[in-house]
């Protein structure tokens, strides 16, 4: 991929991709011939119908949880990552803690989190934030480490102090990497969302899909899956728009 080119740009490519995927889905539905895998038209019809009713509320809860978690992770992980990347002495002590805890699948803490934070939004947001936080932290720290010393000298020679170094050099230099991490994190957030919403809740797309499944209502289940896809797409589109605005200098 060319630096700065966005994944969602190019409407024609997107339409063709959608057509191909729908075609494959149709084919699979015909081959499998099981009522649990409805053809795309039936699923889409059901999605449009349900979207005017209960599905919209579930979609909104999920969007709210994912969006809140991503914002929270950004606010926490970006400053910390920038700081660690630029302060080797602190990083020396903190980095081992990060890399020991990074590979632990945080989702296994779901029971504990439910116990302490209850079954409301807090537990879901906490768990998604925890996972996304690590992805953004590690990327940001590495990016900040890689900022050339000469860039910083350049800015200091112009009279810039420590804050100016962050504002004019380190933050803009790390932004492309942070946005890449954010794009990956959006996918992760949706995946984790599904898991945390399939337990102990009656709100959100995860619940909606699992509920439809237990009732063997294929059309409803697929409406939920499409809504999940829409949610992921909207999040990634948001990152893309941010990238187009914040990293204009790379689109050359």
């Amino acid at each position, binding site marked *: 991929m060319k630096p700065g080119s966005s994944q969602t740009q190019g409407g024609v490519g997107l339409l063709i991709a959608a057509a191909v995927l729908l075609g494959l889905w149709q084919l699979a539905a015909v081959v499998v011939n099981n009522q649990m895998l409805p053809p795309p038209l039936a699923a889409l019809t059901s999605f449009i119908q349900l979207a005017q009713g209960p599905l919209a509320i579930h979609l909104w809860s999920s969007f709210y949880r994912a969006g809140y978690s991503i914002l929270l992770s950004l606010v926490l992980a970006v400053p910390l990552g920038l700081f660690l990347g630029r302060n080797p002495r602190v990083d020396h002590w903190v980095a081992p803690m990060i890399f020991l805890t990074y590979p632990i699948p945080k989702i296994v803490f779901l029971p504990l989190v439910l116990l302490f934070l209850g079954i409301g939004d807090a537990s879901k947001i906490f768990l998604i934030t925890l996972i996304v936080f690590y992805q953004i932290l590690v990327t940001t720290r590495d990016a900040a480490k890689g900022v050339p010393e000469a860039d910083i000298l350049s800015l200091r020679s112009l*009279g810039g102090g420590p804050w100016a170094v962050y504002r*004019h050099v380190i933050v803009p230099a790390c932004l492309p990497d942070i946005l890449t991490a954010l794009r990956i994190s959006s996918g992760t957030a949706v995946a984790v969302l599904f898991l945390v919403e399939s337990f102990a809740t009656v709100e959100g797309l995860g619940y909606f899909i699992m509920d439809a499944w237990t009732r063997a209502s294929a059309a409803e289940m697929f409406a939920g899956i499409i809504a999940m896809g829409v949610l992921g797409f909207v999040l990634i589109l948001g990152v893309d728009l941010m990238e187009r605005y914040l990293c204009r200098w790379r689109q050359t």
Partner: protein
Amino acid sequence: MIQLQHVYQSYGNAETSVPILTDFCLTVKPGERCVLIGPSGCGKSTLLLVIAGLLRADQGLIRIDRQEISGPRRHTSLILQDYGLFPWKRVVENIALGLCLQGVRKREAACRVQPVIKRLGLSGLEQRYPGQLSGGQRQRVAVGRALATEPDLLLMDEPFSSLDALTRESLQNLTLEIAGRDQLTIVLVTHNIEEAAFLGHRILVLDGPPLTLIGTVENQLSTTGYRGQAAFYETCTRIRSLLQHCSQRFED
């Protein structure tokens, strides 16, 4: 007037310390163009950073216009080889950055740098990003940014070494023109013997580390700023023969 008296500088901590400057002395007169030439790694850039106030000397006295240096000085500008410009800032933002860091408002700074932009032949390119410029144009922007803060001392670290021969010559001419008009003192590091002979009133041939003076070539004031004449080649020959005294690590 730059005065360095008995300056000591080393990298690393007490055990791994590598002395770069030991008892180094240097005086550069106002309006003088002093060129430093010597093998890679001998300590030229370190010397420049010490003069720029970006690196604290361990010991010794560094004075510019009788003022002792303890940090970056407002009327000193530094130009580096590759990293000087910030790719995320437009041409005009790069050039105006020094003024902005001095507290001038963005819009006013953009107005105040217009004469510099004109003078460097960058009119019409103000809104471009460095990535949209040729190597020569980019280095012009770097010169413009250095001039925007109205310096009396210009420190240049291999400023033109990544440019092709003709672009390099045009920037050398520009440097001479600017130095003459603004009565600038210049300390320039180069790897290029012709560049040293063309630009320097005085050429210091150095070796190290620690940085040591191998010899000095005086270029008469009246005879700098020429190319291709007998006296020019004579100066080149004198520099070359001094360089041959240096260790054989010298590469260009």
